[in-house]
């Protein structure tokens, strides 16, 4: 096949494995970012630079908010399954629900942040609290990116055009990853604080 006869689009088709691997390397990078935050947090804890005291009730609220994200992730998985079995309407519904819970989680995080500030836990004079806010903020930025992907997917789904399965799957991976990431961070914080 001569180059003269190949169009630009045909030349550069990104296959499924390539996209998947790219995303996995991306996960490695994001994980390293959060590992560094957690390591810094742990080091500050070990050096006893400062203390955080959070009561059980406040901790349970955090668990509640995080479970919203976990449910959102599960709804996405259901949506994907529905789509695979050809049930596009149901798929769209579960996807919208997943997205809505993602937004609820975001607002939940902001409210939780305000609650901590009201309890006198400011990130400006307590580095440990600052680290928690930083991790939540960094996670939220990734989550907003995830919501943009989810919204795009929902639009594609409702347009009725052709949608590649790999896109559905990879957006799902990202969403599940973000859910798992925050769950691990929260568990770590609950255990150590």
């Amino acid at each position, binding site marked *: 096949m001569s180059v003269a006869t190949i169009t630009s689009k045909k030349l*550069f088709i990104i296959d499924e494995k390539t996209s998947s691997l790219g995303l996995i390397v991306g996960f490695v990078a994001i994980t390293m970012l959060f590992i560094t935050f957690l390591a810094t947090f742990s080091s500050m804890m070990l050096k006893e630079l400062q203390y955080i005291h959070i009561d059980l009730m406040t901790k349970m609220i955090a668990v509640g908010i995080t479970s919203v994200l976990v449910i959102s992730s599960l709804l996405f998985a259901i949506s994907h399954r529905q789509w695979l079995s050809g049930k596009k309407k149901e798929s769209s519904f579960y996807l919208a629900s997943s997205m809505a819970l993602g937004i609820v989680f975001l607002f939940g995080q902001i409210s939780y942040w305000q609650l901590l500030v009201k309890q006198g836990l400011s990130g400006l004079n307590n580095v440990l609290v600052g680290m928690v806010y930083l991790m939540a903020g960094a996670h939220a930025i990734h989550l907003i990116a995830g919501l943009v992907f989810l919204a795009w997917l929902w639009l594609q789904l409702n347009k009725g055009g052709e949608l590649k399965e790999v896109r559905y799957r990879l957006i799902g991976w990202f969403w599940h990853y973000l859910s798992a990431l925050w769950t691990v961070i929260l568990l770590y914080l609950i255990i150590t604080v």
Partner: protein
Amino acid sequence: MHSESFWRKDIFSTDHKTIGKQFLFFGIFFLLFGGFQAMLLRWQLAYPGQPVPWWLMGFLYEGTGGIIDPDGFNRLFTMHGTIMIFWAITPILIGAFGNFLIPLQIGARDMAFPTLNMISFWTFFLSGVVLLLSHFLPAGSASGGWTSYPPLSLPGGGIPGLGQAFWTLSVTLMGAATMMGAINYIITVIRLRAPGMTYWRMPLSVWGLWLTSILNAIFVPVIAAGLIMLLLDQLLGTQFFVAGRLAAGGGGDPLLFQHVFWIFGHPEVYILILPVWGIVSDLLAIYSRKPAFGYKVTSICMSTIVVLSSIVWGHHMYTTGMSPLLGKAFMFLTLLISIPSSIFFFNWLGTLWRGSLHFDPPMLYTMSVIWVFGLGGLTGLYNATVTSDIYLHDTMFVVGHFHYTLAASVLFGGFAAIAHWFPRMFGRMLNPLMSKIHFWGTFITLNLVFFNMMVVGYAGQHRRIYNPSEYEFLQPLADMNVFITYAALVLGLFQILYLFNFVWSLVKGKVAETNPWRATTLEWTMDYPIPHGNFGEIPQVYHGPHEYSNPNTDQDWAPQTVEIKSS
């Protein structure tokens, strides 16, 4: 060939070759800028308090009576280090040659994610703009050193204005761009190798660039985390790295930043040098007309160093009061790196041994890497050892050492790569006479500069001091400092010759034949200009990248696309 508009073809191109060239021009610009700053630094060290002469653009210091003031000196060494490492070496070696070589040498049409590749360059470009803009801030650019340690780099550290925040922002942006490149390089090598191009048949240049990308993907996020915290400290008043009197509350830990910085910073040394090791290993084989000695061992050694590099950061911090036991552990691990380094170093010598050496300009530059890297590596042992490092820490000895390992090795590696692949990139040959004059001029003066830096450092001269003549014990070194400065100025003059040669050859250089060096790798199998998409048909690869002087071939080289039948 599909037609594209000027903007898509030359500006926002997704063709890896165009992006490679964009990185090259971008890197050369910053190399000259950072190099010029080095000349000003040397002027101050040789003639402290004397006005900068007109031929060194003394008018830049009109506001201070033509003299580089102490703040200006701090800004100079900060920006010199930052620019050379992040905006000169990185784009030239990793950005330019990573982009240009990887797809061509493994037989791919382009990078795995061409659009991401384009975004990577423009993010890099934006980071450079932010850094340049910081020079025009009312209080000037950053001046906390290229490491920007807190608390010095924080508002309470005494550095006025927003220079430090701009520094942090620009390095963070640069890191994001590097990450995008790293993902692309890693996946391209894993997924887009041509049929027959096994890992053990990849050119060592690709090995070096691939390993560099793995390090980038793992460790750039580490420094990104540190920089985000630093930026919040600088702009929002958090106190992650603030302690003592400066902290309004309980405060954080400035030393933590050093850990985070060097967990990235030491792998960064290998991030910058690995592409050079790969390129040197390949070019030595080409210009010795021999297969690279110990090809597999060299790639295994480079991979081993990648692993070891991630656990030795503490040797940058021996003087921070770390536990002696920890210091010993870091010393042991650091010295361990000398084993794989020595092995592939001897492999280079093995490649040269009884080879048919062709002293073309790329070979001259390549052989000089052996010398400068050898010296840099050997002097590194003193810095790796706790007892000697405590004396040598923060002296000009360290400056000389890392200029040998990083600046000199990477510069010569870059010059070698440009001289070798110039015909592929631009279809013309670099003028060989000017290249050879540049080589000898650079090789001699560079050694005079960096070797003597180590000498004055060994004699006790600290780095980053504004006026060495203020210290009585350094006054006998004044003549030596003047000598180093003149050697540096001559070194700078030879780079003007290089720039002239580069531009002249680009326009008027001899038109290159398809494979002027009779090299075997895939990029030399196509006529210039190589179209977007590279290969008409993806080539079949039959053997490794260094089939030279094989008795079963008619000529002394066999391209990777030609099957060798044993007689």
